[in-house]
């Protein structure tokens, strides 16, 4: 029937099979979408394409160009894939498959890590659910560095959770080296990865606090390795942005074309109320044109988690699409409530491993709030920017699910798998054709 998880529960075969079926549906959807979505639809896909082409030709992306502020690891990987491709295969389709592989890799790490906290059943259910959440489904169906960064950051976080605090010095330092290397690669794939590096230092020190000398050595390794790996690539980007650190997270600081595009995009300025409002349009019409959504940060964040809020793929002119997006946005309140409940439960337990993950999520949310304040446009409010927090989000949902009693827990599992499947259906190209 299965193996015994930490809490002694045996894995019910039916839930494992249901979770596997939802995961397989997501996999099939990604493979289909890679070829079926309109070429290069997606967040800044044209800018990414031009940067990939630069690496394809053997040069670095040009600072000051549309996506020239982005670090080059994803572009280098994409260019390598392009070089290996037969001429008959569309480049964007192969690169979407690369994004899909990264997205599935990230969720695989989430699945493995969750098993340290909750039962195997809940870990499998939550992981399968995550694969269908539209923000991940779309990010892993497009050309871009979002899912690659999510994969590498998730790998760093998982290593921090599994830090062998009682092992010999050599093993701990080798572990720190591996984590630092992954952190450097995360930062090289997207600047958000710097958050994982920033968290790794205090997290490692905290977890090794009983061995101060080893903790110091670990922190040094964790600081030095990413600096050596990623540092040289950030210097020219900072120069192009006139030394502004904002230039590391948005092209608006270095690209005139991006500046002009952003200058005309609403809302144009931010107020504190933008962070406190949650218009009903986030549930009724979850696209950026919905009433009040261009301004509401939580509203557009929710909408872009559960629908194609920026209307790149599922053009909401078809009533059936908008209704389906609305239904999913409403259904999304359930996992949100589970996650809030689970986060509270984790905080009350004072588990340092969970605390590290929650601290990263908080750090990312703060950085997100800061960036949306500095770049007051609706296109800066995308839930995909928070994908590196996939593991903390999964842990919160799983913890909330695990706390439900008896039949409620079964209902919660069923609901999560149903929502995951609905998300996969919604984001599969062509779906709108039979909803008219």
């Amino acid at each position: 029937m299965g193996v015994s998880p930490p809490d002694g529960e045996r894995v019910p075969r039916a839930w494992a099979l249901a979770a596997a079926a939802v995961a397989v549906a997501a996999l099939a959807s990604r493979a289909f979408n890679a070829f079926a979505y309109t070429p290069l639809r997606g967040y800044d896909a044209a800018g990414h394409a031009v940067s990939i082409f630069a690496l394809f030709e053997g040069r670095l992306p040009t600072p000051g160009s549309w996506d020239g502020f982005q670090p080059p690891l994803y572009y280098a990987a994409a260019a390598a894939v392009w070089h290996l491709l037969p001429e008959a295969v569309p480049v964007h389709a192969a690169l979407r498959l690369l994004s899909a592989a990264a997205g599935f890799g990230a969720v695989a790490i989430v699945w493995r890590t969750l098993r340290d906290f909750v039962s195997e059943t809940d870990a499998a259910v939550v992981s399968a659910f995550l694969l269908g959440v539209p923000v991940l489904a779309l990010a892993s169906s497009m050309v871009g560095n979002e899912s690659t960064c999510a994969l590498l950051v998730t790998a760093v976080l998982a290593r921090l959770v599994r830090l062998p605090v009682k092992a010999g010095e050599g093993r701990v330092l080798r572990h720190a080296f591996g984590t630092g290397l992954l952190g450097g690669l995360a930062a090289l794939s997207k600047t958000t990865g710097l958050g994982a590096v920033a968290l790794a230092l205090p997290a490692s020190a905290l977890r090794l606090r009983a061995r101060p000398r080893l903790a110091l050595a670990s922190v040094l390794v964790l600081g030095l390795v990413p600096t050596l790996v990623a540092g040289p690539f950030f210097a020219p980007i900072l120069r192009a942005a006139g030394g502004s650190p904002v230039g590391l997270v948005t092209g608006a600081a270095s690209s005139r074309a991006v500046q002009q595009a952003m200058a005309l995009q609403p809302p144009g300025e931010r107020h504190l109320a933008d962070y406190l409002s949650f218009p009903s349009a986030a549930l009724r019409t979850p696209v950026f044109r919905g009433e009040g959504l261009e301004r509401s940060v939580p509203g557009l964040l929710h909408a872009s988690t559960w629908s194609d809020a920026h209307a790149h793929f599922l053009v909401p002119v078809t009533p059936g699409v908008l209704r389906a997006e609305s239904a999913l946005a409403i259904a999304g309140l359930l996992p949100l409530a589970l996650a809030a409940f689970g986060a509270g439960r984790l905080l009350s337990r004072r588990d340092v491993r969970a605390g590290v993950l929650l601290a990263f999520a908080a750090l990312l949310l703060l950085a997100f709030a800061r960036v949306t304040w500095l770049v007051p446009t609706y296109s800066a409010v995308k839930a995909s920017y928070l994908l590196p927090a996939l593991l903390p989000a999964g842990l919160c949902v799983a913890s909330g699910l695990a706390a439900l009693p008896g039949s409620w827990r079964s209902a919660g599992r069923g609901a999560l798998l149903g929502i995951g499947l609905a998300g996969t259906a919604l984001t599969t190209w062509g779906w709108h054709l039979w909803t008219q």
Partner: protein
Amino acid sequence: MRRRVPTLGGLALALAALACGAPPRGPVETVERYFDVLARDPMRTLALSSPEFHLSHGLAAWRREDGSLSDSGSSPEGSQPPLPRQVEIEDRRVGWINAQIAPHAVERVGELRVRVTGSEVAGDRARVTAEVRPLRGAAFVQRFELARDAGEAGPGAPDAGRWRIVAIEQEGPVGGAWGHLARFAAYPNEALARSLPDRARP
């Protein structure tokens, strides 16, 4: 030739073609390849076109919601200094990609029938002429100027020595709105973009 836009059958076709294809070699093959990948595989058009080409089509990296041009290369107010050449080329490439994936352009490209009618090569320069017949609208002639270049990353670059499109011109009657769309689909450029109906603009 007649190309397919991404459809439900696109997946099967692309998978079936996995083992086929080779890099373009001569100027005629380069032009044929251009029509083959245009809008269907937009990234590959970048490898078929030179920096000069992108400075000539005039497409900007983005445009306002009313479809009007926003040209980051030459500020209409004249208040900003000109962009570095490489930045301008990259911005034009972004505009070129965006123009290809405009919904109406994608649909029209699938309706073009193309026949190469002539070519001449002189050293590292070449001219290729193609006749383009759209499903709706008048047929027209599209002339390509090509050059064999050293590659942007230098003579040792993987792309060095390839034929690349330097410029494109179109001749013949336009034939109304459908004619404009067909011409834009065959050669996305700013001059045609300005004359397209609002919904068809990139």
